[in-house]
């Protein structure tokens, strides 16, 4: 009896907690920090990022994240949000790539600039349908590379993305594994990244997700903002296109 009551209490508590974070996600704190960083003059040019063009014109944030990744003519390549932010940090603020990527993945105590900016900018796409670029030849090339990478087996343990995310109804330990090359799985996942992570009290981005998957695949490290990481994010987002963005989300 006592045990059943306790279990019910625990489940009520979890429900209450879920509701609490849905109403006021800790992601909002990162959004606020991101807004301050967006407007803060930095680098040798002492400029803010407010003139950064995320694809909808300089400084336009509304709905911009939901249309990424896409091809940018000025850089002549496909970029995701983080890669584009890095581009703006080097061009507008005059910072070196080395300086701007010194600490792209943060900790609970000290979130990274990239994480806070991602939270702020992604939140400005809430309610917008995911609509990444897929018409430019370089966008097609990037999507196809992403799909090939998803099934490409490499590394000390012979894994591809599909080794874990290839079959329906599978788990690693207790973690359910979405089959991300199928739209019905990619849609809810891509509509909620980047996200606040409960287990580390930190904020995680898609560049971090690609990086940490490859770490567990026992490969060397993919470079931040590289074509490989962008192509994978592009492939996943195109697979999820049409879904209404509702992030930043909450992850375990």
């Amino acid at each position, binding site marked *: 009896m006592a045990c059943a009551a306790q279990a019910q209490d625990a489940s009520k508590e979890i429900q209450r907690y879920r509701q609490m974070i849905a109403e006021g996600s800790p992601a909002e704190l990162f959004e606020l920090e991101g807004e301050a960083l967006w407007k803060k003059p930095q680098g040798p040019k002492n400029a803010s990022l407010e003139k950064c063009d995320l694809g909808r014109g300089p400084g336009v944030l509304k709905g911009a994240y939901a249309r990424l990744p896409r091809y940018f003519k000025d850089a002549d390549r496909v970029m995701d949000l983080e890669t584009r932010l890095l581009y703006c940090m080097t061009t507008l603020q005059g910072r070196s790539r080395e300086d701007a990527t010194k600490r792209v993945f943060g900790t609970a105590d000290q979130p990274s600039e990239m994480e806070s900016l991602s939270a702020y900018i992604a939140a400005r796409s809430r309610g917008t349908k995911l609509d990444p670029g897929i018409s430019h030849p370089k966008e097609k090339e990037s999507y196809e590379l992403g799909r090939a990478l998803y*099934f490409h*087996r490499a590394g000390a*343990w012979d894994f*591809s993305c599909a080794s874990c995310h290839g079959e329906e109804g*599978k788990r690693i*330990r207790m973690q359910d594994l979405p089959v991300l090359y199928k739209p019905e799985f990619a849609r809810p996942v891509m509509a909620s990244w980047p996200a606040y992570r409960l287990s580390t009290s930190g904020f995680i981005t898609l560049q971090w997700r690609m990086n940490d998957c490859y770490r567990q695949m*026992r490969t*060397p*490290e993919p470079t931040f903002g590289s074509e*490989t990481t962008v192509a994978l994010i592009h492939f996943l987002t195109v697979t999820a296109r049409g879904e209404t963005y509702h992030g930043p989300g909450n992850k375990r």
Partner: protein
Amino acid sequence: MRGIALFSALIALQASADPTSPEVQKVMQRDFHPRGQATMERLAQDGVQRVCTETRDRPPAEVAKALEADQMKTITYPQGSLMGDWKRGETIAQSGRGLTWNDKAGEAGGGSCYNCHELSPQEFSHGTIGPSLRGFGKTRGAGADLQRYVYGKIYNAKAYNLCSQMPRLGLSGTLTPEQIKDLVALLLDPASPVNQ
């Protein structure tokens, strides 16, 4: 000659406009950098990885048979009994460490077994990518042939099923022969919780 014929058959299997696996490998060589013990050589696909990539893990039977036979030759068995200590085996099965860029080189790794398999009934938190191994030895016994099979399968799973998702834990240097023997005991020892 046979190799060339097999190779052409594989190329024909690639259906889409997607880049080929050598092209993908080239992109990765450019986009990755070594970190810790995770060196760039790890991006060079061997025959198994390449065939499994190009056939989406469904290699033609003839190709699979030939490559599995090659993989079988990589397995070396230690002298004497292959049964170690199931208690140490349980610890190894629980650990997911080893070979990542933030694991220390040379430090004992784990088998990551519970990530994908059910083993001891006491451990609820197990994955389902691989089959359940609960009661594995109970129905099969613990004979010398079975010990040899289990040891070989852990050492190099690709010798038995070419495009298995299971890492080649001995061949890749993740587990030592001693550790594999402990896992053999975890699966086969009648006293192991797996067989209770």
